[in-house]
């Protein structure tokens, strides 16, 4: 165990911990209300391991939706993740057997921490692995604890899931400060908002990501030139 990398991973994933514990607890509690106990909560957290996906599965399970529909829904909800690996191919390749686990556990939050830089002296591969494993621990713990004790949380947790949005906003801000060229960030913002207006909240994410990728390709020369200045 590389203590330095672990400690840094712990600090960097702190916001994920807060978010996952409470959002996971909310899921665990809903599952308990539907009549499913701890093994189901922990099992679903471990096997499905996807926040929005798990919440979407709940009503489908209750309604006994057929598996084909489950598959189509799962694919469409998770589709944004197809864009994450592109930036991590080389890094995961070097990780050998762990690569499969890294891919398996590549959720929004883990991705967002993995694409941030680490200071010198921190072992990147170890850090990446700790981040993925810690995030999964938080999520499984949150879902399990919520399933067991969710009804006992003594204060109103409405809005605590904002921690994850805040994490994403912080990472955006960091990337903005750290890069000379703001075209990629602006591209994402504009394509995101335009797609949201055109396609609506339920189906905008794929068009948003696909059009961002296309625009990024079109402005390739501009982006690369200004980065080398």
């Amino acid at each position, binding site marked *: 165990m590389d203590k330095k990398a672990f400690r840094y991973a712990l600090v960097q994933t*702190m916001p994920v911990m*807060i978010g996952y514990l409470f959002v996971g607890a909310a899921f665990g509690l809903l599952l308990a209300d539907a009549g499913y106990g701890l093994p189901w909560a922990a099992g*679903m957290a471990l096997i*499905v391991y*996807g926040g929005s*996906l*798990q919440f979407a*599965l709940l009503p489908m*399970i209750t309604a006994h939706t057929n*598996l084909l529909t*489950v*598959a189509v829904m799962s*694919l469409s909800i*998770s589709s944004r*993740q*197809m*864009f*994450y*690996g*592109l*930036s991590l*191919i080389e890094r*995961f390749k070097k990780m050998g057997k762990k690569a499969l686990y890294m*891919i*398996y556990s590549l959720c929004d939050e883990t991705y*967002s921490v993995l*694409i941030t830089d680490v200071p010198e002296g921190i072992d990147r591969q170890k850090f990446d692995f700790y981040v993925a494993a810690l995030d999964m621990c938080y999520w499984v713990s949150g879902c399990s604890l919520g399933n067991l004790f969710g009804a006992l949380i003594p204060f109103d*947790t*409405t*809005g605590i899931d*904002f*921690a*994850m*949005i*805040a*994490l*994403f*906003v*912080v990472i*955006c*801000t960091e*990337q*903005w*400060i750290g890069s000379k060229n703001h075209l*990629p*960030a602006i*591209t*994402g*913002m504009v394509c*995101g908002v335009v797609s949201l207006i055109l396609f609506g*909240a339920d189906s*905008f*994410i794929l068009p*948003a*990501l696909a059009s*961002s*990728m296309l625009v*990024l*390709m079109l402005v390739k020369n501009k982006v*690369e030139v200004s980065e080398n200045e």
Partner: protein
Amino acid sequence: MSNNMYVIAVMLTACACNFFTRVFPFLLFSKSDKLPGFIQYLGKYLPPCVMAVLVVYCIKGINFASLAGFMPMLISVVAVVLLHLWKRNNIISIAGGTVLYMILVQVVFAR
């Protein structure tokens, strides 16, 4: 099929689909020794772009029908950015923004 078997089948289906989306780019490019130039380029510049889209994804639920529908989110996101530009400390920005958001939705803009 018993209910337990059905739920397990649902979990495995969701797991397979979820994993497929995560492994997809690796399947496409795992064979090549050297990544094509445009993939290297995208790999480098896609993250800020994806993060911006993810933020839009997170706030997509806001509605402009009432102040409570968008003000808490708007104020808190701006607060996180400002806090971060000021202190540049992840924990302060995230904890500050989250507490502010909770107060806004629970007290200030409570229905």
